[in-house]
């Protein structure tokens, strides 16, 4: 079969315009664009894309429906395996997953699978009534507690509710969504899209209690005492890392978590309409090369920074961020300093940041991961004058739950120890998944882990009843 259509570019706001606002950058396909893109798919008999997808979305099938113009059918196919397509279509690293294995990508460009996924999800939101039971039913009568309302928790809760459990989500923050609301910015993932998914999960009968920190407000033991028969921990990896270099506590040094939470969750970009402030400064340096760093640096521009830098100790090829976001950042005028590592944050007498002292790096021998290890070039220190430094060095799981739950074991780096096929932790009845288990990973993997745990919990509770 040969390709008929073509990979249509998705319209985007122009870089000069978009750095002045927080509106979504990628504007979405029209039905015509989607159908043209869908026709580009050659409908492989043995599709590589499906294997590349962590939840094995039936990609050729849904794309075929789009090509036929039957968007409702396409949407149903996607939703069979992916409960958050509007989100995944926007934030999945497709170039590392489905699109990486697309045959067309071997010679030319792969099918724009992510964009099509987003299209069907958005189309559904606008045109279809979501078919949910009018009255939530809880035929099993059993209660399950889900801790954390990120993609792992939302998915696990939604699946369990569909299986007839009475599910309550406990969320530490005042809003549901996890990283999707406090981390990923509006211009990449509109909060209305997240809210839609949260509403959907609620419509399945799931109760969401915000402002509850498990381990502080209530413990896992209390949950069992209150009649919850199983607990899912989807608590994410929320602890920020700092470098341990001099000057990191100067005024003007932020963790990416603080920077993004102020901006996205607390809407500091609308200050003083919203009460939470942020100190942007004229020149901002973001340290790191992942999605978090890209989001932080692009927020800096939108918050009014005139110069925004990415400081990354390896080279461009090693950057873990989604390719599309790196490209967006380039277009928006972000200055990339590769093979550069901070050694000190410099401040003035009053304790405010004035610069970031860095050292040049070169790539040496490959390390354990097979990537060439960056090593400092002696005597190559130099100072980049900046007013603000944002540390986006990765995060690790929060110990609040593990410290307060007897029997719950963790790896030395903080991740919860679980049985891979089920998500069962070292404590009976307690399951976990997402970043809390893997460390910072992806939305789709967290969602997949939530699904796995939901079926495992169902099996566990069914067997327990039989015992």
């Amino acid at each position, binding site marked *: 079969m040969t390709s008929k259509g073509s990979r249509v570019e998705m319209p985007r706001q122009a870089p000069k315009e978009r750095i002045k606002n927080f509106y979504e950058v990628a504007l979405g396909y029209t039905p015509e664009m989607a159908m043209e893109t869908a026709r580009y798919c050659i409908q492989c008999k043995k599709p590589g894309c499906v294997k590349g997808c962590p939840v094995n979305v039936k990609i050729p099938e849904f794309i075929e429906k789009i090509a036929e113009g039957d968007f409702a059918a396409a949407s149903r196919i996607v939703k069979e395996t992916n409960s958050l397509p509007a989100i995944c279509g926007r934030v999945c690293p497709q170039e590392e997953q489905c699109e990486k294995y697309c045959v067309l990508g071997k010679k030319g460009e792969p099918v724009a699978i992510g964009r099509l996924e987003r299209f069907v999800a958005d189309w559904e939101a606008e045109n279809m009534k979501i078919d949910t039971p009018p009255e939530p039913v809880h035929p099993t009568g059993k209660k399950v507690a889900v801790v954390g309302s990120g993609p792992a928790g939302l998915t696990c809760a939604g699946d369990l509710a569909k299986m007839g459990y009475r599910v309550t989500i406990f969320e*530490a*923050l*005042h809003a549901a969504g996890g990283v999707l609301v406090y981390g990923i910015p509006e211009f990449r993932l509109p909060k209305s899209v997240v809210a839609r998914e949260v509403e959907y999960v609620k419509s399945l009968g799931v109760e969401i209690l*915000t*402002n*509850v*920190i498990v381990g*502080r*407000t*209530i413990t896992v033991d209390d949950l069992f005492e209150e009649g919850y028969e199983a607990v899912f921990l989807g608590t994410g990896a*929320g*602890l*920020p890392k*700092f470098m341990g270099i001099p000057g*990191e*506590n100067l*005024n003007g040094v*932020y*963790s990416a*978590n*603080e920077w993004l*939470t*102020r901006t996205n969750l*607390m*809407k500091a970009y*609308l*200050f*003083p*309409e*919203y*009460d*939470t*402030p942020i*100190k942007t400064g004229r020149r901002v340096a973001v340290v790191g090369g992942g999605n978090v760093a890209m989001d932080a640096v692009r927020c800096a521009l939108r918050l009014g920074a005139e110069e925004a830098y990415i400081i990354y100790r390896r080279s461009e090829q090693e950057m873990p961020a989604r390719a599309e976001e790196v490209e967006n950042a380039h277009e928006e005028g972000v200055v990339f300093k590769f093979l550069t590592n901070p050694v000190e944050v410099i401040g003035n007498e*009053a*304790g405010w940041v004035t610069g970031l002292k860095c050292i040049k790096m070169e790539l040496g021998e490959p390390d354990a991961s097979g990537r060439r290890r960056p090593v400092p070039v002696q005597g190559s220190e130099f100072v980049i004058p900046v007013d603000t430094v944002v540390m986006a060095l990765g995060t690790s799981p*929060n110990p*609040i739950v593990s410290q307060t739950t007897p029997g719950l074991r963790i790896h030395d780096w903080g991740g919860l120890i679980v049985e891979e096929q089920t998500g069962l932790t070292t404590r009976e009845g307690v399951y976990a998944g997402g970043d809390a288990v893997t460390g910072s990973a992806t939305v789709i993997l967290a969602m997949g882990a939530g699904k796995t745990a939901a079926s495992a919990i169902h099996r566990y509770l069914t067997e327990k009843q039989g015992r």
Partner: protein
Amino acid sequence: MFTIEAKRVLTPVTKLIVVQAPMVARKARPGQFVILRCTESGERIPLTIADYDREKGTITLVYQEVGKTTRLLGRMGVGDAILDLVGPLGMPAELPREGRVLCVGGGVGVAPVYPKAKAMHEMGVDVVSIIGARSADLLILEEEMRAVSTAVYVATDDGSRGHHGFVSDVIKQLLERGEQFDEIIAVGPILMMRACVEVTRPYGVKTWVSMNPIMVDGTGMCGACRLSVDGKTKFCCVDGPMFDGHAVDWAEAVRRSRIYLEEEKIAVDHMNCAEGGCRP
């Protein structure tokens, strides 16, 4: 919902509210705090739990109207509900069960000192207290403190009651005349706590302070609340809020507390402006 059940005006700028928060009340211990937000566009601010009643499911908060959020809170009355409130946060204070302890509260800081003094008193500790304020009319919880202390000293900046000067002066007088304390607990504005710590340092008396840095989440997620203790970075919301005052890097803590001074003013101006009180 976090409904306000009772409200007392302690001074023109200091209010006490009793809030319905059963889950928080069930777990609260002296020294812990909550983070709250009044409106959808509001900021999250920490407030110490001044008291709690597990049976009634309420917690008591005392605050001084300084920034926008505390002003908004100040206007709320009985029956109104606080939009978001989460806790209890931080580590409970490790209070001594015996001996003689000096409790020092400055300004609104008397409120967080009170539950600690009360708890120690109930365990049989000999509690001596110093309470202070800018002037006599701003003194709070004097009666309550007297009920749990063997002696209460009062200091006011303007001399309108008790010692004319700071609470730290009174600590100095007590230590100079040879009074012995196993520990000192000092809570209040950062500069007051720093002054207290400097006074007790030469005497080597363990001095606990309750730090109140800028916070966002209160769960260790953002690092806004970091401070240096013994040369190591700590997150106040999970490692604190009580720290050994002699180990705190005060210069850093003071300057970090001032990061948003400018913005705090803008927020208050903006609030006044929105209400028609705009200065041209």
